[in-house]
C-alpha cells in the first residue's frame, strides 16, 4: 500500500497528475484537485510519473 500526500499549499491544480494516475487524482467540478489517500502497489509506476510531472513538486509518496 502506498500513501499519497499532496502539499495543498503548493498545489496549483494544474492537473498534470490526473493524466498520469487517473485512478488516484482528479479535478473536481471547481477544477480543484482531489485524490485518494492510499493506492495499491500496482499503481506505483503511475504515481511516480505523477510525482515527476507535478509542476509544483507537491506530491510525495510514503510506503
Amino acid at each position, binding site marked *: 500500500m502506498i500513501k499519497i500526500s499532496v502539499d495543498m499549499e503548493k498545489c496549483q491544480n*494544474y*492537473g*498534470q497528475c490526473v493524466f498520469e494516475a487517473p485512478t488516484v487524482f482528479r*479535478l473536481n*467540478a471547481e477544477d480543484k484537485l482531489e485524490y485518494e489517500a492510499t493506492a495499491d502497489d500496482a499503481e506505483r509506476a503511475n504515481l511516480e510519473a505523477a510525482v515527476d510531472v507535478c509542476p509544483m513538486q507537491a506530491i510525495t509518496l510514503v510506503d
Partner: protein
Amino acid sequence: MTVTGGVVIVGGAMAALRTAEALRRHSVTLPVTIIGSESYLPYNRPPLSKEALRSRTLEHADLAFPLRDSVAHVQFVTGREVRSSDLESGIVTDSEGDDYSFEFLVAATGLRPRRSELAANLAGVHVLHSLDDALALRPRLGPGARLVISGSGFVALELAATARGLGCQVTVVARGDKPLGLLGPELSAALVDRHASEGVRFVLGHTIAAVHGEEAVEKIEISSGEVVSCDVYVEAIGSIPNTEWLEGNDLDLSDGVLTDSHLRAVRESGQPWPNVYAVGDVARFPHWLAEGLPRRVGHWSNPTDSAKHVATEIAHALDTGVTTADFEPIPSFWSDQYDFHLFSLGLPELHDTAITVQGACDGGECVVEYHRDGRLVGVAGVGLRSVVQGYREQFIRGKVAI
C-alpha cells in the same frame, strides 16, 4: 579518462534526471553519468519567473528535484560543460579536458537565452533562464524599480506579472504586435489587456535600439525613438539550442538536434546513429501533430516524455525485451500571470485558425481550439482546466487515426 562506458547524459536538468530514472525503471544497469554545466543538481525551473523572484530566501534546495533511490548510483558531474564529441569513437570531452567514453549518449543540453549585442557588460542587464539568473535578478526587483523587458513570450510576460506584484514599473517592448500570438489573436489581446490593467506598459511593433549607461543601464532607446529611464533591463527574446559540442559529427544541428521518430540523432544522410539520442528542449523530432515535420518542443511535458521514451529505446537496444514505438507525445503546458491561469494541450503554435468554443476571451474563463487545415492541433483554456483536460482523449484518438 574520467568515466568509461555506460550511458552518458550531457546536460544536467530535468530531462537528464528523468532519463536516468527511467533507465533504472527498465532495469538498465549500465553506469549512468550526467554532466551538467550548472553547479546545481537538477531543479525545477517554472518557479524561476515567479516564486523564485517573489521570495527573498528561496534557494536551490527549495527547487531541487528529490533524488530517488533508483538514481543513487548515477554519477552527477556538475559545473562542467561538454565542449566536443566524437560519436564514431564514442567519446565526449568536457571543459576541463576530461574525456568520457560512452556506449549510449543522450543529448540533454537544452537551450540558452538569446542575447542581443546591445548591452555588453552593463550592470542591471539580465536574462532569466537559470537559477543563478533568477538569484541575480531578484534583488533588483522592488517597489519603484524601472524594469524594461525586451520580448513578449512566456518568460517575458510571467516576469512582467511578477515584477508588477513586486511594485516595479514595467515596460514590455516587443517586435511583434501580438504577445504570445501562438495562442491566437483573442487570447493574446486578452492577455495584453490583463497586463495593461495591472499597469504594464506595452510598446509593440518595436525593438530595443540602444542601451545606454556608464557602468549600469540607465536608459533604453526604443526603435520608435522613445527613450525610457531604466534600472533593470531583461532580455527575453528567445533561446538558442546548445548543440555546439556535437559539431563535426555529420548531424543536422540547424535548430537543435534533428532526430528520427525514435529520438535517435540522424546523420545528414538520414541514417540514425544507433546509440545517440536527444531529449528535452534540444531535440527536434518528427511531430505527429505537425504531420511528421520535425519540431523542437519547449513545453513543460516534453523533457519527461522524451526522457522516458529514450530510456525505452536504450532498454530495447540492450535486448531487455522492452519494445519501442514512435515517440508521439501530447504536449501540455501552463502559464500563470496574475489570476490568469492558462493551460494548454497539443501544439497551439501550429494553428491557422483559432476558435473560441466556450466562454469569451475578455478576461474571463474561456476555451480556445486551434486548428490547422481543419485538423485539431491544440487547445488552451483560461480556467476551465477540466474542459481542456477532456481534450486529451480526442488527441489520443487523433493519434490512432493518423
